[in-house]
């Protein structure tokens, strides 16, 4: 806690056992060279003590800049790739930003700041001496569906607290992630790689899944992380056969039994775990028994520094990994006891708890409440289904009704007659497992579902 300094990211690379790399589609950066090198033109002195907006277009330059700026900048504000330009001015004002890092993309007009430095894809040797070490505030943005994003403040010790509790770093690891490292889930993987002395394969904006998978295979990925939606999409690509990770990790959405079983079938040798974390609440827990949900025993004890409780149906977390505040004040992040309300609803069945959905995502069907996720979990169990989206549809009688968009496993798409047969079978499946009001009134087959930049299934209220 206070007074205990976490090692900086620069300390971590100085201790790396061998050269390590970030790879993206365009470049390979031997980031361990940052120990005596720079991608920022050797201008750390100009950035020392400033509030720095990291507004790079590529993840690779983001990764390089974060290593150089940790313990140098007073504050690092990481701009997600899908940030709306219209919110930039408010972000800059609220976070007191006085410097910006880009990577050569045309600067936004709002970014007329005292210091602007372009991060290179390559690392040049430098003899500059490091500025005085500071405890950098790390600021992440949440993905609100409406309005300006919230800025959530962490520090490196909190962001990496779950990693320190783990076994010694596996130096031969090659991490990969379907996430963007400028969001909490992806940043966790970036930090795991750097802290653990591993290399990391990054994706590029708009890169086809098959190309990303090919690169993951080329670099021999051993540890791979993504949301259940990203994994479902990856499983639809034949290129998935070319990778053989030892560790498969899911987080960011509910991991249902169907996706866990699909990954087990695809990677029979891998350890498969799903993790719970959120930008505000930090890392909650890992589940490594191959089953959906989590054991009821996770409550009532402090596990890996994390305390959990349920209030009004939603999961609350308290730990060192919880964010310290929202930048710019406003609403409180935690309650008086330091617990953060995750907004994720859980219910107990037998000796496990299961996530049922988001508090704000409930659909009201003539007074009966339903979470779309619980219906999706049933549909996804159908052997011919790859993924599904359940959404509300306006209805003159009950206000809303649920309908489902379903992506079939590729080999199942076929004739119209075959599709009707599969649709009736899915509905039968739902009727056997769900009360009447949760059975979709209609099922449409779609070639793909939209996955947001956060890696989560895109849900629209309709």
């Amino acid at each position, binding site marked *: 806690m206070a007074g205990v300094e976490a090692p900086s990211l620069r300390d971590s690379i100085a201790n790396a056992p061998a050269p390590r790399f970030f790879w993206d589609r365009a470049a390979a950066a031997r980031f361990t060279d940052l120990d005596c090198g720079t991608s920022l033109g050797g201008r750390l002195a100009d950035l020392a003590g400033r509030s720095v907006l990291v507004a790079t277009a590529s993840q690779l330059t983001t990764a390089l800049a974060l290593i150089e700026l940790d313990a140098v900048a007073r504050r690092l504000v990481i701009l997600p790739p899908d940030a709306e330009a219209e919110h930039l001015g408010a972000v800059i004002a609220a976070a007191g930003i006085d410097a910006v890092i880009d990577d050569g993309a045309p600067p936004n007009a709002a970014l007329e700041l005292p210091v602007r430095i372009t991060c290179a894809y390559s690392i040049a040797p430098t003899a500059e001496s490091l500025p005085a070490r500071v405890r950098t505030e790390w600021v992440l943005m949440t993905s609100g569906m409406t309005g300006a994003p919230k800025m959530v403040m962490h520090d490196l010790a909190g962001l990496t607290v779950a990693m320190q509790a783990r076994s010694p770093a596996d130096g031969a690891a090659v991490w990969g992630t379907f996430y963007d490292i400028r969001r909490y889930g992806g940043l966790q993987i970036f930090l795991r790689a750097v802290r653990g002395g591993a290399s990391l394969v990054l994706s590029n904006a708009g890169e086809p899944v098959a190309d990303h998978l090919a690169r993951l295979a080329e670099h021999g990925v051993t540890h791979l992380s993504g949301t259940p939606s990203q994994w479902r999409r990856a499983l639809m690509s034949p290129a998935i056969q070319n990778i053989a990770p030892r560790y498969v990790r899911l987080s960011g959405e509910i991991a249902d039994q169907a996706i866990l079983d699909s990954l087990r079938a695809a990677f029979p040798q891998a350890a498969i775990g799903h993790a719970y974390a959120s930008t505000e609440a930090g890392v909650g827990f890992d589940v490594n028994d191959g089953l959906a949900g989590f054991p009821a025993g996770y409550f009532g004890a402090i596990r890996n520094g994390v305390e959990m409780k349920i209030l009004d149906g939603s999961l609350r977390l308290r730990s060192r990994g919880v964010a310290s505040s929202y930048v710019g004040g406003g609403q409180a992040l935690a309650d008086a006891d330091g617990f953060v309300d995750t907004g994720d609803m859980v219910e107990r069945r037998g000796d496990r708890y299961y996530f049922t959905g988001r508090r704000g995502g409930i659909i009201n*069907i*003539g007074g009966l409440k339903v979470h779309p996720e619980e219906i999706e979990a049933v549909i996804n169990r159908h052997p011919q289904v790859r993924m599904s989206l359940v959404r509300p549809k*306006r*209805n*003159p*009688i*009950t206000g809303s*009704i649920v309908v489902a968009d379903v992506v079939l496993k590729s080999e199942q798409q076929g004739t119209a007659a075959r599709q009707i047969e599969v649709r009736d079978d899915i509905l039968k499946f739902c009727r056997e497992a769900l009360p009447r009001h949760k059975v979709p009134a209609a099922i449409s087959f779609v070639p793909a579902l939209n996955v947001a930049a956060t890696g989560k299934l895109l849900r629209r209220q309709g």
Partner: protein
Amino acid sequence: MSVKLTIIQQMEQIAREHGKILAPLKEDLVLADCGLDSLGFAVLVARLEDTLGLDPFTAAEDAFFPVTLGDFVKVYEHGGR
């Protein structure tokens, strides 16, 4: 297939799915007595929108709902007007 036949087939299908028994589907059957509950009607309207391409109730400016099966069929036959 006629609009009327489509509606009757859907009602029978939904009754089967929901485990309900339908009254004889005559023109003057009062919908409230037909055997489908409000969820059944909600599903019926959603399915008819898919098959007939029209939800005359949500599209209408005034809140209204026909009383008899005959009226219900007419609403669909007249495109919600």
